[in-house]
C-alpha cells in the first residue's frame, strides 16, 4: 500500500489476510474455533517499532561509554578537570530549536496529508530549517574540537579529553545519521512518497539525539 501525501489512504477494515504480512501484530487473535473476527486494529508499522529498537541499542552504547567513564575516573589519580568550550552551550540551543522546528513541520505535514490545506502551506520549509539547524550543530561541534585542538588539548592529552572527544564524536556520528534521515524525508516529500511512519520514526530519532546531547552535556559538565 504505497500511500503518498497526495492520496490519503482508505481505512480498509476489510483487509483480507491474504493481503500480506504485517497486518497481524499484537492483538488480533483468531479464536481456535476458526471464526475470524474483523481486523479491528492494524499492527504498528514496523518502522515505528524498529526505531525504538534502534534507540535501545544506541542507549546501550552510550550507557557503556558512561560506565567506562565512571570506572575509569574512579580508577586513577590522573583525572583532569576540563572546562568545556562555551560554544557547546550555544550548540545545545541549536539542537533544542531543531527539535521544535521538526515538531512544527511534522504537524504541517500531517495537516497536509489530512488535506487541511490552509494550515499546510509548504510543509517542507520547516524541514529545511531543521536540517539547517542540524548542520549548524555539527559545525558548532567541529568548531569546539578545532578550538580545543588548537589550544593543545588532543584526544590523548588526558583521559578526560579522550572521553570528551569519544562521546561528542560518537554523538555527532549518530546525528549525521539523523541528518541523512531528514534528507531522505525531504526527498520523499518532494516525490510524494513520504509515509507517515517514516516521518515519525525520523523525528523520534532526531528528538532522541537532542535528549542524548543534553544528557551528554550534563555528564561532561559534571564529570570532566
Amino acid at each position, binding site marked *: *500500500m504505497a*500511500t503518498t501525501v497526495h492520496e*490519503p*489512504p482508505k*481505512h480498509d477494515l476489510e*483487509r483480507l*489476510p*491474504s*493481503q*500480506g*504480512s*504485517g*497486518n*497481524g*501484530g*499484537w492483538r*488480533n*487473535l*483468531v*479464536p*481456535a*474455533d*476458526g471464526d*475470524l473476527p474483523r*481486523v479491528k486494529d*492494524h*499492527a*504498528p*508499522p*514496523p*518502522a515505528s*517499532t*524498529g526505531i525504538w*529498537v534502534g534507540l*535501545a*541499542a544506541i542507549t*546501550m*552504547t552510550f*550507557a*557503556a*561509554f558512561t*560506565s*567506562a567513564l565512571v*570506572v*575509569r575516573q574512579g*580508577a*586513577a589519580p*590522573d*583525572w583532569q578537570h576540563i572546562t568545556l568550550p562555551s560554544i557547546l552551550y550555544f550548540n545545545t540551543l541549536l539542537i533544542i530549536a531543531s527539535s521544535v522546528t521538526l515538531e512544527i513541520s511534522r504537524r504541517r505535514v500531517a495537516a497536509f*496529508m489530512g488535506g487541511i490545506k490552509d494550515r499546510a502551506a509548504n510543509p517542507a520549509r520547516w524541514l529545511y530549517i531543521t536540517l539547517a539547524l542540524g548542520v549548524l550543530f555539527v559545525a558548532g561541534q567541529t568548531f569546539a574540537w578545532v578550538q580545543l585542538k588548537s589550544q593543545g588539548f588532543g*584526544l*590523548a592529552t588526558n*583521559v578526560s579529553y*579522550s572521553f570528551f572527544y*569519544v562521546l561528542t564524536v*560518537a554523538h555527532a556520528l549518530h546525528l549525521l545519521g539523523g541528518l541523512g534521515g531528514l534528507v531522505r524525508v525531504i526527498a520523499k516529500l518532494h516525490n510524494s512518497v513520504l*509515509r*507517515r*511512519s*517514516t516521518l515519525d520514526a525520523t523525528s523520534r530519532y532526531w528528538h532522541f539525539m537532542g535528549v542524548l546531547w543534553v544528557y551528554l552535556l550534563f555528564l561532561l559538565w559534571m564529570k570532566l
Partner: protein
Amino acid sequence: MHDMSAHAVPHGAPTSFIRKHVFSLDHKVIGKQYYALALLAALIGMALSWIMRIHLGWGSFAIPGLHLLSSTGAPGNVLTPEYYLQLMTMHGTIMVFFVLTTAPFAAFGNFFLPIQTGAEDMPFPHFNMMSFWVTFVGFWVLIASFFVADGPTLGGWTQYAPLSAIGSVGGPGQGLGVVLWATSIAIFCVGQLFGSLNFITTTLDMRCKGMSLMRLPLTAWGWFITSVMGLTAFAVLMPACILLILDHVAGTSFFVASNLVINDQVLPHSGGSTLLWQHLFWFFGHPEVYIAIVPGMGIVSHVLITNMRKPMLSHRVLIYSMAALAVLSYMVYGHHMFVSGMNPISSLVFSFPTLVITIPSTIVVLMWLGSLYGSKLRINSASLFALGFVSMFISGGVSGFFLAQPSIDIMLHATYFVVGHFHLVMGVAAMFGIFAGTYFWFPKMTGRMMNETLGKAHFILSFIGAYCIFMPFHYLGIAGNVRRYQAFTDDYLIPLIPVHKFITVAALVTGFAQLIFVYNLIHSRFKGAIASDNPWQGTSLEWSTATPPPHNNFGDKMPVVYHDPYQYSVEGASADFIMQTSPEKINSPNEEK
C-alpha cells in the same frame, strides 16, 4: 489521523544473478549465506584446533606445510610458543563469533523466523542484507591478521588488558593484530545489531493473522529472546572495541595503567584501568554465551517435539525459562572475574545470581527430560543430535555449579576445568544444536533430504568423540593444569601428558567425523532424494509452504493460524498432527490462545 502505512512494502522477486545470490534482500538467501560463512569459519576453526592439539600432544612433531601459514610462527613446521597462542586466539574468536553466533542465530533465524511468524520477509531487508555483508567483511578483517607482519593477536578471545592494549611491545600480533581483531569484532557487532533489529521487529510486527505471541514455535521464541540479548550485548562490546582501538592508534589511556614496564620499556600510557576492559567485555561476554545457546534450545525443543509427536510438558514454562536466562545473564558476568582483584564483596554479589541462573537452566533440562520420558521418540539424525545437545548441556552445566562459587573457582579458574566446562556447555552443545537444525531443516532449505545413514554415523562418532575430548579436560583442571600453555614442562604437569595425547587423538578422529557431515551436506545438496513439503509431519508454518519456499514464502495466499504450534496426537483429531494453518476444530487441553 490516518495510519499512513500499514506494512512494509514487500520487495519483488529479484531477476539478476547479483541480486538473487550475492546482494540479496531475501531473508532465505541471507540465511544460507550466513550458514555458508559459518561453515567456512567452522572448518578454519577446526583446522586450527588440530594444529594446537598436535602441538600439545607431541610438541616437536613437524606438521608438513605449516611454515606456509607463517614462516616465523612455525619455523621447521613446529609452532613457536607465541604462534601457538596466536592460533588459539583465532580459534576462539572464529568459533565464538563467526560460528556459534552466526549459525544458530543468524543463519537459521534468518531463514526460518519470518516463515514461522507467517511473514513475507523481514521488515527491513536492506538492513538485513547489510547485516550479512558487514559480518562477512568483519570475518575477512579477522582472517587478514594471519597475513600481516607478525601475525594475529595472541591475547585470547577475551583480549584482557593491559596485554591487549600496549601494542607490539607485548609480543607478536599485539600491534596490528589486535587492531584488526578489535576492528573485526566492532564490525561484527554492527552486523549483529542490524540483524537483531530485524529479528525483534519481525517477531513483534510481522506475524500473520492468528499468530499470537504464545503461538510462536519455541524456535521463534529462542531467536527473539536471543535478538534482545544481541541488541544489548553487542551494543556494549562495540564501544569497548572502539576504546581498545584508540589505545592503539591514538595513544589514549583507557586500559593501560601508569608506569607499566614491559620488556624493559616504560609505556607512555597513564592511569588506565585494566579491570575496565574486563567489565565491558564480560558484560557482553556472559550474555554472548547465552546468545550462542538459546537458539539451540529452541531448535532442540522444536526437533524433539516433532519427533516425540507430543508437545513439551509446558510451552510457557520453557519460554519463561529462556527469558529468565536472558535477563539473569546480565547480572552474572562478574563470575568471570572472581580472581581479577575485584572487591571480594562483588564476588559474593555475582556469585548469587550465578547460582540462581542454574534454576531456569535446570527447569529447561527437566522439561526436556520429563517430556522425553515415556515418549516414543523417532530416531533420526536430527533427533539424535537433539538428544546429544541435552546430554552435553547437562554435562557441561554441572561444572558450572562448582565454578559459580568463588571459593572453588579460585582454584579452578584459568585451568582446563573451565575449558572443559564451556566447550561442553557452549561449544559442543551449540554445535549439536546446529547439526540438529541442519538435518531437520535441510529438506526445507534445499528441497532435498540428507543421507540418514551418514547422519547417524556422524552423530555416534561426534557424541563419543566430544566426551573423549572434553571430559578429561575436567580431570586435567582439577589436577591443576593451567589453560593457555603451549607445553607442559613443570614437574606436576609432566604426568598429565598422556592424557593430552589421548585428547589429541580423540580430537583428530572427531574432527575427521565432521568431514562426513560436510560430504553429506554437499552430496545431498545435489544428489539427495527429493524432499516433500512436510517430510517430518511437522505442524509449524515452515511445513505448510512449498519446499523450498517461494520468494515471498507463502505464494499468493498468506497463512492464517488457528492453533498453537505443537498440536500432536490430539485426541479425536483427524490425523496425528494438526498444522497451525488447519481450520479443524479441536478440543485440546494445551491449546494456546
